[in-house]
């Protein structure tokens, strides 16, 4: 379990991470989503004690990172696949990490085997492809058989086979009851791996929700209609028991309706239509709208401090009404 409490990081005037409070629970994959520069990597570095929080704290199973004895046996992390000395072999890289945490030597061969690097174990890391470097980083994370795993953008730069491998690995780790915390800037990636979603933008918490909830709220289809006979169409729809809402540009939108159905209805009542189109709000769009609103929100409120829960609630509301308006 990773607990963040009011975690804040400032670099001079710039606030990279702003008052983040959330908990990453065991047994599921928690996705950590945000656009580039949202503060995901900074947050993860603070979890590992690499960067010092300006305010707030992070607890790993109730302890501060530097209070953990042999931390690699509690939490394994892949922050940066290139955080390896290129002149050292994969075997020696893992061996020095194992020794520093009192992990038996035999474990090195095990994790090399688990990530499929046994054949190149004695080769220098600088000759590794990006995908191999990523695998070596993951081997390092698995080394101490930790209950918590944290991966920063693990699928970046990987080929489809590598991506599939990592997705499967994360799911199986969570299925073993481990805590898996993985960041990404791609909603589509999170949609297929994460069970729970933490979204940040501009360093602020925007959503902390289960993936199922997020999909239910955001992946709805609707029909967009434009007509010069607006009032007449609304009457027709109302009679048929269909609710339409106003959208931008004088258009109407009908939730979950079938275009054939509305088209037939309009033809029966001789209503002229200028547009009748099925639309799908993709998760990616929902995510972009959510983070875009955080920027807007941020700019309007300025220095007024807002408690996290209120922020989250308003962000949820905003994106709920946002898609209806077809923003």
């Amino acid at each position, binding site marked *: 379990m990773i607990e963040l409490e009011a975690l804040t990081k400032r670099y001079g005037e710039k606030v990279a991470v702003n008052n983040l409070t959330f908990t990453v629970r065991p047994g599921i994959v928690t996705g950590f989503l945000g656009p580039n520069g949202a503060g995901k990597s900074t947050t993860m570095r603070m979890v590992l004690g690499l960067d010092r929080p300006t305010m707030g704290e992070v607890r790993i199973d109730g302890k501060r990172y530097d209070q953990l004895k042999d931390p690699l046996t509690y939490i394994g992390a892949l922050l940066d696949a290139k*955080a390896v000395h290129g002149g050292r072999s994969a075997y020696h890289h893992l061996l020095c990490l194992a020794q520093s945490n009192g992990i038996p030597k035999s474990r090195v061969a095990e994790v090399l085997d688990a990530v499929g690097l046994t054949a190149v174990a004695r080769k220098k890391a600088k000759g590794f492809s990006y995908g191999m470097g990523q695998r070596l980083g993951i081997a390092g994370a698995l080394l101490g058989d930790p209950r918590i795993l944290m991966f920063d953008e693990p699928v970046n730069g990987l080929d489809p086979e590598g991506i599939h491998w990592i997705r499967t690995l994360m799911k199986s780790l969570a299925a073993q009851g481990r805590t898996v915390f993985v960041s990404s800037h791609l909603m589509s990636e999170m949609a297929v791996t994460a069970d729970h979603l933490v979204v940040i933008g501009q360093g602020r918490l925007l959503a902390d929700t289960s993936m199922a909830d997020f999909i239910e709220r955001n992946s709805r289809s609707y029909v967009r209609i434009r007509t010069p006979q607006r009032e007449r169409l609304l009457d027709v729809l109302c009679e048929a028991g269909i609710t339409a809402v106003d959208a931008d540009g004088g258009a109407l939108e009908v939730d979950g309706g079938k275009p054939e159905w509305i088209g037939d209805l309009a033809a029966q009542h001789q209503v002229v239509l200028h547009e009748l189109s099925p639309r799908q709000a993709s998760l990616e769009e929902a995510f972009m709208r959510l983070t875009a609103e955080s920027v807007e929100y941020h700019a309007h409120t300025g220095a007024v401090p807002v408690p996290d829960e209120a922020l989250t609630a308003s962000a949820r509301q905003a994106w709920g009404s946002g898609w209806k308006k077809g923003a």
Partner: protein
Amino acid sequence: MASVQVVRSEWTKIRSVASTMWTLGIAAVVTIALGMLISALLSRDWEHLPPEERAAFDPTYMSFAGMSLGQLAMIVFGVLVVSNEYSTGMIRTSLAAVPQRGRLLFSKITVATALAFAVGLATSFVAFLLGQSMLGEHRTSLDEPGVLRAVVGGALYMTLIAVFSMGVAAMLRSPMPALGILMPFFFLVSNILSNVSATKKVARYLPDQAGSTIMQVVPRAGDAAPYGPWGGLGIMVLWVLAALVGGYVLLRHRDA
């Protein structure tokens, strides 16, 4: 502050990178070979030396003449051991494994210092013995007063130069500025300062100028330093401690 398992880990780190081991080898070879060459040349030209130089001749120090160049390889070793963690990004992996930063730094320095001392001791004895063999009738031996101290001192000097470089590298992190400051300083600036009369007195307290008195058996004619061989080494140790404290303080407070 160091711990057994972290020391073991640092030993694996240091021995598994070829570049750091190479620099130690180069330090040994350069120091020994150059000392032999200069000793041989001096022995051949003995007849042409002015009498005051003959009187102040220090055969022990002469066999360490290669140190001025060999120490540069020791500097590279000290800098690389610390800064390659930063230049490769390995430091983030290392600090995640050992979040107690002082423990990481001092375990690393313990291992690198022990290795530098082992190489320094071997280098110093070989440089002395081979240097003396080149000096022929002007040679001295380990039985003479102060000679054994000077030879062991040569090992200490090489070690301290490396440790000083580790401290500076811990402060500067990146290898290029660290090497860019240390190499010209010890190879040129320090020598120039100690030969210009205006700065001579101050230059005596520079780490290499003070530390190298430990390798002298016959004090330099005309300008005896206000400290003895051990006093000089003590001054160098203070410089080294200052560099280590600086490196530790910065490492502790900096984001990795």
